[in-house]
């Protein structure tokens, strides 16, 4: 495209031309734009932007990222008073949606489009036009060879060129014969158009992947839900514990299917010493219904094996224990009964428990403590869980009464109890002591505030529910990209020219040259193969062929073709004023 700028210079007056020569900005606004566009779509810029993209992606792995875990970011800012806030203003906690990261990839993709479109047009034309004219001096091509057909073979120059054309067509070349009846008939041939097609498909598909990902973000949604054994999730907005809609999400997108957790099984490793007690298999038995009236179906939900339902996928992402408790209030009524989700805190399902009983009368009750599946107490009176399975389940709790503050309207975390406005009832340091419960046992709270019984233990699972309409397209484009990439790297685009002539003594002289466009380490091999084809066709003795070919076609040096890199052929393009059009690989200025 730099030529276009030159053209503009030529059109202007000589004075203006001189000025343009002297200072670039004299190109004028249009010229400037054009210049900027040329720069943006150059290979060098693409390379620069690519490397910049790689560098820009790195901070996202160094700092906590909001989309992945907002709590970590808050903590990080707290822990790094000095620069935590500064990083935030630089969007380093949202790297992949930051202005600068977006700018880089958008520029890259604009550059990509600016690169692909002209190339596609040029390639379309090239595919429809005839192979380039025969260069004057074939001997300057990276692969060159000659053959001599004896006069008594009766193959005149024109026959030779025609049979060469036939051979090349059979080999997949597109061939044009020139000057067939002249003194020096020649042919131009070209093959490997799929290389460029592959390259174009590859780059275009990258745009497709990007667009699919963006579309998924717009129209998709995701959410989480915790299900205790026996619980049922219904796919409506209220069914989710947490819900993240895409920008264009409509609640009507949700299909009201249901999923009930019947049973959750974990297999623990009881074999290896190092990993004893590690979970090795999670399996949730669930009953699903596509919609309220549909027949029920039992399925197994596992890690790495989501359940697909109503256009969404449901993933098993977490699990734990939920002790079942019954709490009676000061009036002797059941204020709460059911499983309480315990949050994992440490090894072997050492979990924290928070129970809020807003319905307790006359005072609301609150409990905080731990659940241990296999409780063990050390001599120092530290309790820990010795095994992930329920060998000695224990619930240790402190209790409080007072106003839980649930009516204040401020959203509360169900896993945290704010005890500032509560009065402690049970704690280790109080006269009443803490509460320690085994399954089946009941503790009575002091001052007639009520009782708590530990009835048993259930398991719960955490599921993620995702709907991403973009991902199928992303996959299709990614596969297309790989196909294009393979074509582009492994199809070789080659040109062959052959010229024949008749020597004074009646022999038919044949010369041929080959040129690669782009990387092609097998060009010499192709030259040797063509030579052999010709020699067989014209029944030249093998040794004669070899003698003539002694410089480059000896099979022993075939592998030397590695030495024919793009750069070498580039030299050719530079040194030969060949009429063959652009010869070397297309390189940027």
């Amino acid at each position: 495209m730099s030529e276009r700028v030159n053209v503009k210079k030529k059109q202007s007056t000589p004075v203006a031309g001189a000025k343009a020569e002297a200072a670039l900005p004299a190109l004028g606004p249009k010229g400037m734009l054009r210049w900027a566009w040329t720069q943006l779509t150059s290979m060098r810029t693409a390379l620069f932007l690519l490397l910049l993209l790689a560098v820009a992606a790195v901070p996202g792995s160094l700092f906590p990222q909001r989309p992945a875990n907002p709590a970590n970011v808050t903590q990080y800012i707290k822990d790094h008073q000095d620069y935590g806030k500064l990083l935030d203003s630089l969007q380093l906690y949202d790297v992949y949606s930051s202005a600068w990261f977006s700018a880089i990839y958008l520029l890259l993709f604009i550059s990509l489009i600016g690169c692909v479109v002209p190339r596609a047009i040029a390639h379309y034309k090239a595919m429809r036009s005839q192979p380039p004219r025969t260069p004057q001096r074939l001997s300057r091509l990276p692969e060159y060879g000659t053959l001599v057909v004896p006069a008594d073979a009766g193959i005149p120059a024109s026959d030779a060129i025609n049979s060469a054309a036939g051979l090349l067509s059979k080999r997949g070349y597109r061939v044009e014969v020139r000057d067939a009846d002249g003194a020096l008939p020649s042919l131009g041939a070209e093959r490997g158009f799929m290389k460029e097609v592959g390259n174009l498909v590859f780059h275009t598909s990258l745009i497709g992947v990007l667009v699919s990902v963006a579309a998924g973000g717009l129209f998709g949604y995701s959410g989480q839900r915790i299900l205790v054994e026996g619980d049922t999730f219904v796919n409506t907005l209220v069914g989710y514990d947490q819900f993240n809609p895409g920008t264009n999400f409509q609640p009507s997108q949700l299909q009201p299917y249901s999923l009930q957790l019947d049973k959750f099984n974990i297999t623990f490793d009881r074999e290896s010493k190092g990993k004893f007690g590690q979970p090795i298999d999670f399996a949730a038995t669930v009953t699903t219904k596509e919609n309220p009236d549909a027949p029920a179906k039992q399925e197994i939900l596992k890690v790495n094996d989501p359940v697909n339902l109503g256009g969404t996928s449901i993933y098993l992402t977490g699990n734990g224990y939920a002790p079942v408790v019954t709490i009676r209030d000061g009036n002797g009524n059941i204020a709460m009964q059911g499983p309480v989700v315990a949050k994992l805190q440490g090894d072997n399902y050492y979990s924290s428990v928070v129970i809020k009983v807003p319905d307790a009368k006359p005072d609301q009750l609150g409990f905080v403590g731990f659940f241990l599946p296999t409780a063990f107490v050390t001599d120092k009176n530290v309790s820990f869980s010795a095994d992930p399975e329920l060998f000695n389940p224990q619930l240790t709790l402190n209790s409080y009464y007072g106003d839980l503050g649930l009516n204040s309207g401020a959203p509360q975390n169900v896993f945290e109890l704010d005890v500032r406005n509560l009065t402690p009832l049970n704690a280790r340091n109080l006269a009443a002591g803490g509460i320690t419960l085994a399954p089946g046992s009941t503790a009575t709270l002091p001052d007639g505030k009520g009782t708590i019984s530990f009835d048993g233990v259930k398991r719960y699972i955490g599921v993620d529910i995702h709907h991403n309409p973009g991902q199928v397209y992303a996959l299709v484009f990614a596969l297309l990209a790989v196909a294009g990439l393979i074509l582009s790297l492994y199809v070789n685009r080659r040109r062959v020219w052959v010229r024949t002539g008749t020597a004074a003594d009646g022999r038919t002289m044949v010369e041929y040259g080959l040129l690669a466009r782009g990387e092609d380490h097998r060009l010499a091999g192709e030259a040797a193969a063509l030579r052999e084809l010709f020699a067989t066709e014209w029944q030249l003795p093998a040794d004669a062929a070899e003698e003539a070919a002694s410089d480059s076609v000896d099979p022993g040096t075939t592998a030397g073709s590695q030495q024919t890199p793009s750069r070498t052929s580039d030299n050719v393009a530079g040194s030969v004023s060949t009429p063959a059009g652009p010869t070397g690989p297309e390189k940027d200025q």
Partner: protein
Amino acid sequence: MPFGINETMGQYSELFMLLAAGTYTVAFIAFAWDLAKSSKALRAVDLKAAQAGATAKVPVAAGVGAGSAGGRLSGPADRAERPSSSTAKANAAGSGGIVTADGDMKYAAERRVPARVAVALTTLAVLIHGAGVVTRALGAGRVPWGNMYEFLTTGAFLVAVVFLVSLIRRDLRFLGTFVVGLVIIMMVAASVAFWTPVGHLVPALQSYWLVIHVSIAVLSSSLFTLTFAMSALQLVQSHRQKTVAAGGADKLGFMRLVPSALSLENLSYRINAIAFIGWTFTLMFGAIWAEKAWGRFWGWDTKEVWTFVIWVVYAGYLHARATRGWTGTRAAWLSIVGYCCVVFNFTIVNTLFNGLHSYSGL
């Protein structure tokens, strides 16, 4: 359910690994010996040639001259300058009289005994190593790439195998010290820093995608290891070629055994192209697996970030090879940077960064 654990097999495996590491060490010494000895021999040949008033390029140049025999319609006399496959060799050899190994990396006629010994030893080590990998797999009752220890030992095995396989067609024995050295480092790192007894896979890894995704990742990484070695040598060689061409002293005599910078660049480009396709698959299969396991195919988890960075760097490398002014040394640097990212992704990211991919088994 996975198969049972067999701790005895695990112990056999460790014994094999130890034996293999020992054999590699001996092979490494043999490769180093070969470098030293051959460079001495080459220097002697050089000296003799210089005394005889001949330069090293004569025999090659003769081959080029012979090309003028054929009948020619318009063949000019300057054919020797034609940068064709057959003359590039002569050019490389001719520049400043330095000798490098055959540019096409075909085996030369003369025998290098130490190199043969080294290759034989490497083959033996690979066999033992293979036994180690197989017994590990039997011991754990699954594919042997489920934690850092196994990635390293199986990865090192693949590096060595890829190297040996490439030796069938090309004389890459000059890479021996480099490759075997890296293999030894990997084995030592595995046993010292990442040792893990045989065990079951955590549920997050129990998927056939582990077999597909990780095996391609490890295979691509071992190819990147080869090209890293070549690119590093390419930088040294191109520095040496420049120095010698400028009339400087050839201080790096052992580099005579190494092909010209250009040949190194071309071969490493070809290997990098294969490895890049492999890495593209790694990335894609990883995304598919992430979709299956976590419900999203891309989430910029640290491991995903670095896999992406590596992919982009090598895409940059492929671009550089087609950008004027960026071939040669700069492309080699990109290839090296890419490999550094591979190593970083494997070591630091797996151990220090916590992401969803916390499978390092530590």
